[in-house]
């Protein structure tokens, strides 16, 4: 009885697509023109920070969104990418952007054994491993001071020595934007592919996916490595932009938690979910830093926000809001008959089964 395809309120497919395209173009236009509209370089740095968060949470979403494996330790890959880039530039004398890609490749290689250990187990143990990764790397990078600079930090030489500060920020804004676009594109491609379908099958029911012949372990490992590589690129780019690394901030469990928070807030099943979450949370974080300084209360706020999202909107704010809107919209998708049972019985007595459908349609129109 349900007729999903010809519901009156649904927009015809091509028009809907145009709408999407228009929104996308508008978003790109805003993002590209932002640096020239920003009143001071400070706003551009806020933009860079938000873009950095967006790349990180989109990269996180390769694992979290597709497979449903929630990693709290993705900050480790960002930190590794940042340190690898920094060390390759500072000690390896590599050109900055070559170092960036070499670093991402190194992190991807390192993600293979990590993923090998972490993905053999499901659920709880996976999260434990991801947290442990951050904690152990923090210990190593703090203790191994002769190589990493330890708690004194590591200074990364600037990639464009002659450039003025404002110009430096502007350049990196566009670099981060390009990286974000690449990450989104790859996510979109995987989303539409057979590979993506297999990953989503893992998310819905790993045992069934496996029994239907999906190579679940290989798929998980591949997407884990892809995710780690993008996270490392974001971390490396951050290192080149910011120029100063401290293990406490690079291998912070909090940065991993922010990625999860942003992605969950926006909705992990959507392409733009993590991006929207990053804009909201990233802006709030930067605002709080300026207004209230660095008090421990930002931990409380982050914790409360994460708790609320996890408890009440595990699918994200956007799907939750859409569902709320959907309640007030007449979708026409209902099996409720607008006739009383007595009327229906009367009709049924009059006609055979085929004509009942017609009568019902009339009944709904009235």
């Amino acid at each position, binding site marked *: 009885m349900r007729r999903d395809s010809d519901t009156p309120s649904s927009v015809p497919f091509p028009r809907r697509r145009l709408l999407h395209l228009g929104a996308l173009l508008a978003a790109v236009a805003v993002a590209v023109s932002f640096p020239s509209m920003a009143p001071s370089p400070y706003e551009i740095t806020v933009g860079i920070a938000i873009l950095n968060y967006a790349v990180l949470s989109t990269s996180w979403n390769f694992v979290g969104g597709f497979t449903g494996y929630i990693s709290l330790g993705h900050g480790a890959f960002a930190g590794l990418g940042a340190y690898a880039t920094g060390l390759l530039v500072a000690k390896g004398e590599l050109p900055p952007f070559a170092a960036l890609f070499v670093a991402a490749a190194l992190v991807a290689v390192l993600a293979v054994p990590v993923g090998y250990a*972490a993905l053999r187990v499901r659920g709880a143990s996976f*999260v434990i491993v991801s947290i442990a990764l951050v904690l152990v790397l923090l210990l190593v990078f703090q203790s191994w001071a002769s190589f990493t600079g330890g708690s004194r930090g590591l200074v990364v030489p600037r990639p464009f020595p002659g450039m003025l500060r404002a110009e430096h920020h502007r350049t990196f804004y566009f670099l981060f934007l390009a990286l974000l676009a690449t990450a989104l594109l790859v996510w979109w491609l995987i989303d539409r592919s057979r590979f993506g379908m297999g990953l989503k099958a893992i998310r819905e029911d790993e045992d069934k996916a496996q029994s239907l012949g999906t190579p679940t372990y290989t798929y998980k490992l591949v997407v884990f490595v892809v995710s780690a590589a993008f996270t490392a690129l974001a971390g490396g780019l951050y290192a080149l932009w910011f120029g100063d690394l401290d293990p406490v901030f690079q291998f912070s469990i909090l940065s991993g938690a922010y990625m999860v928070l942003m992605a969950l807030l926006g909705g992990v099943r959507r392409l733009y979910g993590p991006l929207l979450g990053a804009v909201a949370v990233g802006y709030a974080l930067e605002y709080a830093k300026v207004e209230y300084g660095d008090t*421990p209360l930002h931990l409380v706020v*982050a914790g409360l926000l*994460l708790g609320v999202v996890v408890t009440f909107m595990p699918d994200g704010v956007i799907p939750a809001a859409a569902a709320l809107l959907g309640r007030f919209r007449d979708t026409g998708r209902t099996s409720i008959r607008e006739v009383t049972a007595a009327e229906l019985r009367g009709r049924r007595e009059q006609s055979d089964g085929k004509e009942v459908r017609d009568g019902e349609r009339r009944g709904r129109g009235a």
Partner: protein
Amino acid sequence: MPSASLVFQSVVLGVLLGGLYALLAAGLTLYFGVMRVVMIAHSAFLILAAYLAWYAHRETGIDPLLTLFVTVPLFFAAGVAMQRLLLTRLRPATLTMMSVLLTFSVALVIEGLLGYAFSGTQRRIRLGYSSASIEFFGARVAVVKLIAFGMAALALLGLYVLMKHSRFGQALRATIQHREAAQLLGIDTDRIAGYGFGLGLATAAVGGTALSLDTTIYPSLHWHWIGPLMAIIVVGGLGSVPGAAIAAMTLGMLQSLLQLELSTTWAQTVFYVALFATLAVRPQGFFGGRLAQRF
């Protein structure tokens, strides 16, 4: 090569440390058993209890051990409330993953509030017997460490007796083993699960008080505890109390022995090495049974 007496001293210290690890890991195992929940906030509550002991001592001068009479019931109630009000709200299908995030957020809130209330300054309780130590076959052991170990051992023993020799313990173990079957036998598994959670949190109260006796505390200290504790329960096999206890003793002793040769921070990596090695070789842990297979 360190001398034999130094090694012996390390072994003794390792055992004392392992006792505390074992108690806390038993708490984590309880949560996992009753709810299939990995409780990241366990060590945050541990530090909270330590702060409460320190605060009570600073304000009134009472012995930190006396705060146990307040913190243990308080934490038990908090655990029951947390299970009933927060964790049961999560969808069963994604409970394990989402509960990690939820308890993680609780940990962040506790850390933030501790930092706000007491600042990030490092705190330490100074007691009359803080510097006292006794000779034990040539090893010098601080009295406070012995007290901490004694508390942990007593609490573990109490937990064991409760689990094995009381009706409540039987019901709790039945709930852990097979929830539906326990329900069929007339056990109110929801209530039992709540109490199980409360018991787990009570171990954090005991552990925190023990910790406050001889450790410098600060709000973000809990990250240094949760990692080793997580490693212990995975190595021991999720859901296995004896496994957790054995893993706690072994790894605690290894850490203590490694400190002879390496710095403290490097010695702590032994937990993570053990964790990764376990997952690569035997993902269900070394003592885990049926439960650990799927998690």
